[in-house]
């Protein structure tokens, strides 16, 4: 009996589907695929709610329990981890709706909106670091922006992940500074150098090959972003004098207009007094 290619493909897909026997989940559809595994939309029969089910080709280590304890508005909560009947590991997490950051960035957004998203990612990272967890694979594909602007960072700290080219720090051992590097790469991805040389300098500093030249924490990185947004000088960039003057004028535009108005009034009154 001959079997057509399409039938073979279908059989391969069916075999690759996770065996959810013995779990509380019912498979709905595949929603994403990456190097580590596949993400499916599933239904939790016990609680009657939809969840995202990530099925991994590698075993989940003890760090998953640590990640499951992270509670932050920008960290996707993990509901459960376990092993499927076919031997593969899985974890169930909140099913997110929105756009992945790479797709979100393709649309038109203001610089301040892009920085807001980046700050949310940074705050989640800073919190995770304070809990002893590092992300290891921060990249646009692991960040979701919801329809109401909420930001979620996904795929935390799986040991087997060695980062993604372009976002992975050059060092062999991953630690908090590797996440700082990846956050800088994310900033570079979100903001072009033509938007602001100061922001480009922040990204460059975070992505220094020499680890000692990087920000020593995500908080220090975010503090420089804050300084930029407040119109202050950033640590990463020694700006030229003309740029400093422009920044001063931009920060104090109303005051300068009022002083100019006062000077104009005085000049007019002085020169017109004889008429």
């Amino acid at each position, binding site marked *: 009996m001959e079997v057509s290619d399409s039938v073979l493909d279908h059989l391969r897909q069916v075999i690759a589907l996770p065996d959810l026997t013995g779990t509380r989940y019912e498979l709905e559809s595949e929603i994403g695929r990456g190097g580590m595994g596949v993400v499916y939309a599933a239904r939790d029969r016990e609680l009657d709610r939809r969840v995202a089910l990530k099925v991994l080709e590698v075993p989940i280590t003890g760090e998953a329990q640590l990640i499951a304890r992270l509670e932050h508005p920008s960290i996707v909560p993990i509901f459960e981890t376990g092993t499927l009947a076919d031997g593969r590991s899985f974890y169930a997490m909140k099913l997110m709706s929105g756009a992945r950051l790479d797709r979100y960035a393709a649309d038109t957004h203001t610089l301040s909106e892009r920085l807001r998203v980046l700050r949310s990612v940074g705050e989640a990272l800073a919190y995770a670091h304070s809990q002893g967890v590092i992300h290891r694979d921060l990249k646009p594909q692991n960040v979701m922006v919801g329809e109401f602007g909420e930001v979620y960072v996904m795929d935390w700290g799986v040991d087997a992940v060695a980062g993604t080219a372009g976002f992975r720090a050059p060092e062999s051992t991953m630690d908090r500074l590797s996440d700082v590097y990846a956050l800088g790469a994310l900033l570079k991805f979100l903001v072009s150098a033509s938007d602001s040389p100061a922001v480009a300098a922040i990204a460059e500093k975070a992505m220094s090959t020499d680890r000692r030249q990087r920000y020593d924490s995500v908080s220090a990185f975010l503090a420089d972003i804050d300084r930029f947004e407040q119109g202050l000088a950033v640590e990463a960039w020694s700006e030229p004098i003309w740029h400093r003057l422009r920044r001063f004028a931009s920060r104090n535009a109303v005051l300068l207009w009022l002083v100019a*108005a*006062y000077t104009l009034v*005085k000049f007019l009154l002085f020169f017109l007094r004889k008429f």
Partner: protein
Amino acid sequence: MNKIVVGLIFGLILGAIDGATALFYPETRPVIVGIMIGSSFKGMLVGLFSGWFARKVRSTGWGIVVGSSLGLLFAFIVAVMDASKGKPHYLEIMLPGFVVGAIVGFLTQRMGTPAVAKSGA
């Protein structure tokens, strides 16, 4: 620093500078000290009320409106007092007073610490 203190300080300084510009007019030089003291006092009053307003309302726009209105009001009072002594100088006194008031109103909004809300018992 308290916003009222900020208002008083900037009102004093800007009022003094505004008064000192009378030096450009030869006819006012003999009474320059009196003009500077009066202008400084006027500036401090504008600063006092603008600072008090800034403690209640945090709005740069409203700060400028209130400051310039107060500047105009006090400058009008000064101009009336000045007119009673001889030739009136309403425009020369009120127009700069209006703009100085706007600057003081703006500065009280931008600088100084706002009032801390008292918690109920």
